């Protein structure tokens, strides 16, 4: 069984990403998402590696676009929720973010 490996030699590694005074940007999240979807081996055939990098680049652009769309859409939802609650100034502030 692996994971920590036989004899407790680590064969996996987690990463920790943190931010200060903000959340993650769409670009940061898209990068992580792309890494989940596609992993490119350094040992792969150069032609296949180039193709994979090109695919990853296009994937990244699509992910960034739709994450931004999701953020904008959620702000619309929050704007309306705040407006309905009578917090119009706060709602305007959210919309301007």
């Amino acid at each position, binding site marked *: *069984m692996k*994971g920590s490996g036989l004899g*407790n030699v680590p064969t*996996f590694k*987690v990463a*920790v990403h*943190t931010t200060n005074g903000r959340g993650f940007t769409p670009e940061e999240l898209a990068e992580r998402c792309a890494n989940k979807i596609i*992993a490119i081996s350094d040992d792969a055939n150069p032609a296949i590696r180039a193709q994979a990098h090109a695919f990853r680049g296009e994937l990244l652009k699509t992910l960034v676009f739709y994450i931004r769309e999701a953020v904008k859409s959620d702000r619309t939802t929050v704007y309306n929720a705040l407006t309905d609650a009578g917090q119009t100034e706060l709602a305007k502030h959210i919309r301007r973010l």
Partner: protein
Amino acid sequence: MAFNGNFMCTSFKKELLYGAHDFDASSGDTFKIALYTNSATLNASTTAYANTNEVSGTNYSAGGQALNPVDPTSSGTTALLDFADETWSNATVTARGALIYNTTPNTTSISLTNPAVIVLDFGGDKTSTAGDFTVVFPTADASNAIIRIA
């Protein structure tokens, strides 16, 4: 004291043979991840969750957060398991490592309370200040996944 690497807990390996852990994404057990300071002593001998030297901070609750497992799968002759990345939002916290543990094990054949699964060493203190703290799990393949049976 202090973290000295990633470990799959020895007790967890034994408990697998008792059928104590179910990683099914929809109907399986509840696995949580708790964060610890570098004063914690967590290693392969860790058998269960304890709050000694667990971190504290804004938007961090003792016991940590529930993980979302991905259904076990296989690649070639290797069975593997993944978790969705876990984020503490708008948190002010500093952690050196973590423990993944099972809060709802099957105790039909073995007596257990919050049994430990895996110890994670972040390699250094990681801090978020009024921000997001995210544990990113490795690629879910036969060479890197967090839990593999080869």
